[in-house]
């Protein structure tokens, strides 16, 4: 075994290993990337029903309803970025830090009727902390800009968003549903 042929072996093995890693990564990137979307984006460009997304925004105050199917608890609530609201349906236990009027991230898919079915609902460890992506979405929607100080607190979000969000929700659902609301 000469030095040269050993080096050839090593290079081959390295190329094979890293090549496999690169191949697997690219393959996984094409199908396993999860995009973050704000409710208004979901309304404007609904993703395919097989595409998992992260939906983030504020939970509209007064929108949470709890029912159950058989023994499975179902929670439903609206998530808004101040421009549009999306109804989220979740079968399971909502996290401890889930609050109306506070930020939330829901992981799941958008159904053909525009409703969002969550497989996971995340509320952050700290009630004063807002997920970066939610803050960014709120800034983009013009509801709050970090340039003008701290994020408004939960209470003011309630009064600030409920009306707009309800309005958008009614518009999105069509006149009949809207009146029923």
């Amino acid at each position, binding site marked *: 075994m000469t030095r040269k042929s050993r080096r050839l072996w090593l290079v081959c093995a390295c190329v094979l290993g890293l090549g496999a890693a690169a191949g697997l990564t690219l393959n996984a990137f094409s199908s396993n990337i999860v995009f973050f979307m704000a409710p208004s984006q979901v309304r404007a460009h609904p993703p395919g029903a097989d595409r998992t997304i992260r939906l983030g925004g504020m939970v509209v105050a007064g929108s949470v309803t709890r029912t159950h199917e058989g023994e499975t608890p179902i929670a439903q609530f609206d998530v808004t970025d101040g421009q549009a609201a999306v109804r989220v349906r979740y*079968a399971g*236990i909502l996290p401890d830090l889930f609050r109306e009027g506070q930020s939330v991230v829901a992981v799941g898919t958008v159904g053909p009727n525009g409703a969002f079915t969550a497989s996971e609902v995340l509320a952050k*460890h700290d009630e004063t902390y807002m997920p970066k992506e939610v803050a960014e979405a709120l800034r983009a929607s013009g509801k709050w800009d970090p340039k003008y100080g701290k994020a408004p607190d939960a209470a003011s979000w309630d009064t600030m968003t409920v009306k707009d969000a309800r309005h958008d929700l009614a518009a999105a659902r069509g006149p009949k549903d809207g009146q029923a609301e």
Partner: protein
Amino acid sequence: MSLMLTEKMGGPELGNFALALACCLAGAQAILPLIGAQRRDARLMALAPALAVGQLVALAASFLCLVGAAVSDDFSVQNVADNSAVAKPLLYKITGVWGNHEGSVLLWALILGLCGAAVAAFGRNLPSALRARVIAVLGGVSAGFQLFCLLTSNPFQRIWPAPMDGQGMNPLLQDPGLAFHPPILYTGYVGFAVPFAFAIAALIEGRVDAAWGRWVRPWAVAAWCFLTCGIALGSWWSYYVLGWGGYWFWDPVENASLIPWLTGTALVHSAIVVEKREALKIWTVLLAIGTFSFSLSGTFLVRSGILNSVHAFANDPARGIFILALLALVIGGSLALFAVRAPMLTAGGLFAPVSREGLLVLNNILLCSICAVVVTGTMYPPFMSLLFGKTISVGKPFFDATAAPLAIPLFAFMAIGPMAPWKRAALWPVLRRLWWAAIASLIAFAVATFSMSGVLPVLATGFAVWVIAASITDITDRIGLFRLSPAQSLSRARFLPRAAFGAALAHAGAGISVLGLAAMSQAQHRIVEVQTGTTEHLAGYDWTLRDVHDEPGPNYQAIVATIDVRRHGHLVTTLRPSKRDFASQHQTTTEVSIHTNLMSDLYGVLGDRHGSGAAATYVLRLHYNPLAPWMWLGALVMAIGGALSLSDRRVRVGAPRRARTTVAEAA
């Protein structure tokens, strides 16, 4: 009394002074021994250990002052006021010191100081120039981070007026598991500073030989053991505290600890080749630099808020710039030195592709490929948001699809490695010795195929059994069990190096962990909303919600559920999950109740209460987690294996005399 204690210790100002003193000593430690080693000035070189010990003493004093301030509720210290409160239990007043950014940086510096002093204490047999340079490099890194601590995150900052009570700690962090997780994890991270310093010292000297491999390996193994335990402890914490039944979330912070673990594991293996065969020298030096660089970036990129994660308790860009500059200096500087000096290192012994060395190279390639995948998955989202403003996330499906297929061949070859001869081997004789391991793993494949769903868990089970069985074969073969008389076997076992036992144990531990992971993929759970008295069926058990009642706690109000779990009518256990409401922090925490028999965990979580009185319903989350404890048990076995090989006489930190003379001659 506690006030007197701080009076005696001098309080935060003394702590601040001690920290500044430590920083000055570290600066001197970085420069003087280096000059001494260059000029072969014995007096300057002899300063190194003294300075390292002095720095440690100053740091320890500084750390004690901070602990003293926290214990005595000195709320004029900003850090204590922000993170502590009078009502907090004493244990958490102490452990809370490192539960925040400033304190954790100080702990980090303290452990680094400890590493420097450890090299000074245990490295007496090292050539004096090498020892001086190693301690100097550690001093340089120390100085940088102590400066960071002093300038941007000083834990001794005062506030005026001092509040009457502190703001208290996040109730989630009030947990014994989390109290000891950071020190162990940090010891793992920081421990890799020693191999790094050895690598830099070797590059400055321009020489790496077998002796260098023998000296550097114990430090790498020790750091690796701590990192393994730290990761396992963190994973266990999230399993029993967060209440989701999950144990690993592929969160950026978790990945930040996994990445140096992967390269550290590669380093521990490649250093064997340097020690035994004087090959892979340049690569090992690069791995030592890389592992510490990943440790540094892992701990500090997270703290600077570049990676968005639930763990980050400091999102302060001002610190970020300091950290980035420091990282650029340490990592960039060491890589530049590597680029200039590495070509001077001569290539070592030759070996065939199929040989112990060849298999260790394969181990390194696969571990580094996994590492590359994890780095890509962790760094891609922040880069996408930085460059294109797109917010994306990469989660479990991505890592399952990329890391797992690379780990399978790693395990396949892991069994063969320790049995293959050095230099040149034939695959067939090795495989023939593993015949019963092969049969065991085929049986495991067969059983798994019928009882498990999914291709990956089946493959993982088979290869995990393959590795465990091969580790047992390795040891029984070496001591000639069943081949020789029991007395002969025993005496062989006594003379077998402990490192051999250590390696077999560590490999078996990895197998045990993977078995646990594979079985956990088959975990079952149900979420139900029921009234008291209802019985649910899950995984062959009957779970009855017997009662729910209120229970007052010291600083919270709890509701506690009583769930009887029966199997075939016999009571197995009674689970008491609860929910605690911390009124002062407006926070609720979930207390999981877990019953384990080491083969499976019964895991109960109490959710919301709806309605009231007799008609009230409760949301319950019930989990059946097969082999869950094996995941952490395997990690513990791995760490014990590492510790066992550390206790081997041949790799004792104080290196053997013979090696010293050969180096002296070479010099």
